[in-house]
């Protein structure tokens, strides 16, 4: 358990000891533990963990790190609490662990899953769940039919108890092992995972009903098959989503290949657009779209000949016209990407000016789409503050003064005010400016890839031990 903090070690041992105490009654001789059912369910858990381990080496594992919650809940419904505790243990101990310390993570997974299953089973028994499942449980058929509307009550309560305890224990490990502040540790996961747990509870209830019916365990497993497929598909969804973001970034980097001056510019304009969106009260998908608009605003530079983009010194009028075509090229490139929607208008119109003297269409005032007015301000701000090979960047206050001077004629004053407020609130610091190249801009103090990697690295590590 090298590199595990002492508090975390104590916490893990406490959880494991608690789970062990819960399991004790099953191990006493003469307890009548249904060992066949325990063995079968534990073997299934093990199989699902191993499947997650082998399915995609190096790739994302299924939701829940291979632990298959409907199966665990079915065990909680079918077995007495002390026996149910044992079901997740072999799987969790053999399961996939992506980072060291391996032993500590395995013990932790086994202990907290076992405790959660035990608690769920206890709630289920307390509300009279086992009798409501009907059947006999020995596979011989007969027995009473399931008491269906009522059986939902203990099953739902047990699923909620399972989810709550899991979230509470997860929060504890985040605090002790990952040093996440206590107020963050319990906020996200607890509220988000209750819906899925109730759904898993429904599937587990039908699994348990069929398991105890005359059709036996085989038919029960068929209930879990669609659930397993859907959790696998869900993991695939997350992989594709990540790949998609990377592709957007690649589109931007393709611009960087051609135009050395703009390195990191697109990402920073995306960040500034996002800040303005926050101040304007945009949320969810619109804020995300605005960020994409900022990131992709210069993608049309791909259409401008590299010789012109890399030219030192002033451009001829002809060359200037070629550069001014880039919003239209950009619009053309992203035309096929359905989800960008409003962002496409921003890419086309981000060089329009409020007084109508911009390009490509010379729109004025409210004719310019809202997203384009935001991106125009963000673009100008970053162009002024970033250092390019031919000049140093201006300090932030000077850039803000310049923006305020041009508000009304070139920029929408509302967007400029929003940016100023956002800068007051969040600052324009090193962590927000992503520099994608190895050539460091000299002018901006504290801007560096080292800070950047630690910031994003910490965010990626946060799920920590629980996965």
């Amino acid at each position: 358990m090298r590199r595990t903090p002492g508090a975390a070690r104590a916490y893990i041992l406490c959880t494991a000891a608690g789970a062990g105490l819960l399991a004790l009654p099953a191990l006493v001789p003469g307890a009548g533990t249904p060992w066949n059912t325990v063995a079968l369910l534990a073997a299934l858990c093990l199989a699902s963990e191993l499947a997650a381990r082998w399915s995609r080496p190096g790739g994302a594992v299924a939701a829940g790190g291979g632990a298959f919650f409907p199966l665990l809940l079915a065990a909680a419904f079918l077995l007495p609490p002390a026996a149910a505790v044992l079901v997740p243990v072999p799987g969790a101990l053999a399961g996939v662990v992506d980072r060291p310390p391996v032993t500590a993570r395995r013990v932790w997974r086994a202990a907290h899953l076992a405790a959660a299953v035990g608690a769920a089973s206890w709630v289920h028994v307390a509300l009279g769940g086992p009798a409501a499942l009907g059947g006999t449980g020995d596979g011989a058929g007969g027995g009473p039919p399931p008491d269906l509307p009522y059986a939902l009550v203990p099953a739902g309560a047990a699923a909620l108890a399972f989810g709550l305890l899991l979230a509470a224990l997860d929060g504890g490990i985040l605090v002790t092992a990952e040093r996440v502040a206590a107020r963050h540790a319990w906020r996200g996961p607890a509220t988000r995972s209750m819906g899925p747990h109730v759904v898993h509870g429904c599937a587990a209830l039908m699994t348990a009903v069929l398991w105890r019916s005359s059709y036996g365990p085989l038919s029960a497993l068929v209930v879990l098959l669609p659930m397993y497929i859907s959790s696998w598909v869900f993991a695939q969804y997350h992989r594709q989503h990540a790949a998609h973001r990377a592709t957007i970034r690649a589109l931007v980097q393709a611009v960087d290949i051609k135009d050395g001056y703009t390195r990191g510019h697109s990402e920073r304009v995306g960040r500034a657009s996002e800040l303005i969106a926050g101040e304007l009260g945009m949320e969810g998908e619109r804020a995300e779209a605005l960020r994409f608009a900022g990131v992709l605003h210069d993608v049309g530079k791909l259409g401008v000949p590299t010789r012109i983009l890399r030219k030192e010194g002033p451009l001829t009028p002809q060359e200037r016209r070629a550069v001014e075509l880039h919003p239209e090229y950009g619009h053309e490139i992203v035309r096929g990407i359905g989800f960008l929607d409003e962002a496409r208008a921003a890419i086309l119109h981000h060089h329009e000016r409020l007084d109508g003297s911009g390009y490509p269409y010379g729109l004025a005032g409210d004719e310019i789409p809202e997203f384009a007015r935001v991106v125009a301000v963000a673009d100008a701000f970053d162009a002024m503050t970033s250092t390019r090979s031919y000049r140093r960047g201006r300090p932030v206050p000077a850039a803000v003064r310049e923006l305020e001077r041009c508000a009304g004629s070139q920029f929408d004053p509302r967007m400029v005010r929003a940016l100023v407020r956002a800068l007051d609130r969040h600052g324009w610091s090193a962590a927000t400016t992503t520099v994608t190249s190895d050539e460091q801009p000299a002018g901006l103090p504290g801007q560096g890839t080292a800070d950047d990697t630690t910031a994003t690295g910490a965010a990626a590590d946060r799920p920590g031990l629980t996965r």
Partner: protein
Amino acid sequence: MTRLGPPVAAPLAVRGAALALAVLALAHTVWHGVREPGHALAFGALITVGELARWGSLPGEREPAPLGAAGALAYALLGRSGGEATTHGVPQVITVVAAAQLLAAVPHLARGSGPDPDLVARRILAVAFAAACFQPLYATGRSPRWFGEGPCFALFLLVLLGLTALCDAVLGALTTPAPRPFGPLLRDELRALGGIGTAVCATGAVVALGVAVAGLWALPVLCVPLLLTQVSFRRYAGVRATYRQTIASLARSTEIAGYTPHGHARRVARLSTAVGRELGLPGPELTVLEYAALMHDIGQLSLVDPVPCGATATLPAAEQRRIALLGGAVVRRTGVDTAVAVVVEQQADPYREQPLAARIIRVVNAYDDLCGEHAGGALHALEQLRLGTGRDYQPRVVEALAGVLAREAPSPLGTS
């Protein structure tokens, strides 16, 4: 696009058979009255709701309404409910499924976009197949005698559903409008059974067994997790589509930058996947092939001056390989499967050192370059490729390309 002889007749026959079957079943049901109206209503509602979920499905999605399919199959395989035997026969199953399909189509028709008649016909025939296999056996008491009411019965249902899936795959291959031989079409359909097909079959069996044990209450309890399955499939399909669009945009950037001729990437991708299918590449490898084909010229963005006409096939070999390596470097940053980057990097190597996908892209890219260059067009280009089969182009791939082109003959590639 011209259709060859058999594929025109087959979809019409499938539609006709489904229509005749539905009309006969309806007449029979009206004549004899509806048995167990509660069950008919509950399953009808389930199927209708499931079919309504076609809303917002993407074109070409494998099974746009998995819940509807599973509900219909479950009704076909329902022999008992809450321990009591049911007496609805094959005609009533077909009637309920057809009626639910019609009902679910109403909102679509109101919007002016009717459901694909082929899909409706396919669903009706597949369900009729399952019901015809199961209901007579159960009603005459043979199935309970052979399989009892235990695990064997569950196994029997699963086998029946497997057969139904096969039947559905055959129907799917018959109703595909593409002018392709039946064999590869059927192979594609069978491969597609893996993911959502399995989920639909398992769900159908579960709903039938669940209702047999617990009565109609099993329907809502099972619907909740099934909706989750449907949502996750839909979200996955959505993000896949977006991802494909973004890749295509990235691919088009070389065209807009003036490095490659208009539509080149798209044409090479389309033709490469057709050749890949012809050579029997499985689904995931086809996706790798498609992405690599879309992005095969992306390395040219690093060039200060464009290659004349963007035709890399006529450049010296060393230059071709340099551009390929530059392209691989860009693709590695896109987050696609590394296999795609490997294919892009190796696209200019001699064919004996290449993976199959890179061989295909090399041949198709050269074909498209040569087509654009010469007025002689397709024939001349193929002739050039055949001359290069000693080192650069694999003979088998060139012949597969010739086969694909021959089938698409009326619209030569260079002008499409």
